[in-house]
């Protein structure tokens, strides 16, 4: 269970998150939508422990631990995964080497034996097949020169390998062709389980045809201003975000979820 309470975060003295509340129960998939610049990626990165953002107020409780007290790598090892909106290139480091280091860091933390090269290759090749990635991507530098869609698949591959307890997907569907979108969605659906929660950030309700969320939230100006079921996404698609601010006046967690304007 993830409980975000009154979260405030700033960068360079500029407040981005301004009292954000959100609860995600085990096994649930929540979608977050919202206009450009509303703070969706900021939320994702603050959860993942990026230190360029300063948490100025609020708390995040994750199954009884104070998430904000952990450094980024410990959050990752404890099972928090972020699929980046803009995956980072690391020249000179092969994808295979990077993935193996990541998987083994997480396995060490969980008290599991580390994979040797053979075990790892067998595992990674199977997962690559599932996300439709060619083997050559193992031997290229991490994300270097990957197309937008290839980078996104590489994120899903890493998620599958790391088997997180909480996955945050930041616009993993953006820039994907329709086939890739289905593959990504399948990747996510395969990971769905009663003990695994997910936060899926997206601009397109189309993704939610494939990944059916338990809840949909609208983030605007650093706060959740509306929460509802799947139908909220359809409304947003139809009417845009304009009506939310006027109808709800920015009030968090609107009572009449899904109500038409």
């Amino acid at each position, binding site marked *: 269970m993830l409980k975000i309470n009154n979260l405030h975060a700033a960068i360079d003295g500029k407040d981005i998150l301004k009292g954000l509340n959100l609860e995600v129960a085990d096994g649930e998939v929540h979608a977050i939508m919202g206009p450009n610049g509303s703070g969706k990626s900021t939320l994702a990165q603050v959860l993942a*422990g990026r230190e*360029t953002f300063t948490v100025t107020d609020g708390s995040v409780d994750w199954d009884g631990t104070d998430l904000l007290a952990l450094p980024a790598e410990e959050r990752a090892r404890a099972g928090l995964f972020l699929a980046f909106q803009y995956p*980072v290139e690391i020249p*000179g480091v092969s994808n295979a080497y990077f993935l193996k280091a990541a998987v083994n860091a997480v396995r060490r933390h969980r008290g599991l034996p580390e994979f040797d090269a053979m075990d790892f290759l067998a595992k990674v090749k199977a997962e690559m097949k599932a996300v439709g990635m060619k083997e050559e991507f193992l031997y290229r530098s991490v994300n270097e020169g990957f197309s937008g869609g290839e980078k996104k698949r590489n994120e899903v591959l890493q998620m599958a390998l790391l088997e997180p307890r909480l996955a945050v997907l930041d616009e993993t569907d953006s820039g994907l062709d329709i086939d890739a979108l289905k593959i990504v969605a399948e990747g996510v659906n395969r990971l769905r389980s009663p003990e695994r929660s997910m936060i899926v950030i997206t601009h397109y309700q189309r993704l939610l045809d494939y990944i059916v969320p338990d809840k949909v939230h609208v983030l605007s100006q650093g706060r959740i201003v509306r929460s509802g079921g799947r139908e909220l996404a359809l409304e947003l698609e139809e009417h845009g975000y304009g009506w939310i601010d006027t109808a709800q006046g920015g009030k968090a967690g609107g009572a009449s979820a899904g109500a038409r304007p």
Partner: protein
Amino acid sequence: MNAPTRSDAIGAFLEQDYAAGFVTTLETDTVPKGLSEDVIRLISARKGEPDWLLDWRLEAYRHWLTMTPPKWAAVQFPPVDFQDIVYYSAPKSKKDGPKSLDEVDPELLRTFEKLGVPLHERARLAGVAVDAVFDSVSVATTFKKELGEHGVIFCSFSEAVKEHPELVRQYLGTVVPPEDNFYAALNSAVFSDGSFVFIPKGVKCPMELSTYFRINARDTGQFERTLIIAEEGASVSYLEGCTAPMRDENQLHAAVVELIALDDAKIKYSTVQNWYPGDKDGKGGIYNFVTKRGDCRGARSHISWTQVETGSAITWKYPSVILRGDSSVGDFHSVALTNNLQQADTGTKMIHMGRNTRSTILSKGISAGRGSNTFRGLVKVTPKAEGARNYTQCDSLLIGDRCAAHTFPTIEVRHPTAHVEHEATTSRIGEDQLFYAMQRGISAEDAVSMIVNGFCREVFKELPMEFAVEAQKLLGVSLEGSVG
């Protein structure tokens, strides 16, 4: 939030212990501080040298007196007081020096063992012959007999002067003449020991040769001289390693290395330099002012320099190749790392004189902390060097934002058929890369060493196997605490 900050993580990573920083306590035979003709006579007498060599030293000394230290390098340090240095210090031993390992002071053997260079029979590095130089003298050379069976001479420089004076006289100073530069002249006047290698015609040296240099005594300079000759069709791979204790004063190391390759000969010279770099505030450390030059004297000869430079407070060094023979080949592969307040001004010169000569320069500079790293390269194609080719690639990697990297490539082409290519890149290990790795459970330290090793891979693969692993570890240690 009470999570440690990333700059802490990076800081902790760059701070490290210098494992080779201990001092060995021994009785020594030490000449008083200062430099004069008398001191040179004393050194020469201690070593029982012939008159011609003493005269050679004195001539170099007289020339040195007319010279001034070079000022053009991008390094800064207070002037060195050359009268405040001890020019000769040797562990006391039985009169003529040890004849076998049994006669070597056990304290010395333990020192080298502690440094990972065991000298006694059973523990020797498999397939590697070692010459161990401690302060001013060579204390032991291993595998001499086995090498002798192939006609290979591998011994200390002093021994070569005694046993093979004609070879020493024929080649000494023919690549780096005493008047070449300030530090070469100083070295020629006061050099105390070093290694001598001679590979006769047609012989492929059956094992790796290596010299391990250790500075131990306080206030002592190390001035070693290495001379390697590969006759027609001969080949050899040679490696040097260096360490020194941690001391608050700066110590001077001014070596000269000369390589000579005759027709079809090949010399591969690798260095893993880990002299004490000084502490994180820049106190102490070795001044490493070295002249290294190879002469591809014969046709189709090949000289290859590979260096991994992680130590020293200041490094001033430009291993070069004179491509005299037609179709000769010169290579320079370098990784130079500066952390904290270290300064490195290093690079190479490729002088194309013969026809169809080729050279490759691959330089990887890594700067962390407040380190400063300069690459200086000269590619010169003389009027007779028809069909000369050079490829230069010069990459810099910055860790953090207080360090600096500079490149000064100079190209002088005097023949229209020459083909010279230069590429340079600069990259920085970014906070975004570290965060990405950390988000995958990889620590910042591991992420940095992953990126650094990826950056250096092309150079590491030029090192002999065992040493590639060493070099990789050394970089990890030298970078500890640099993430910030």
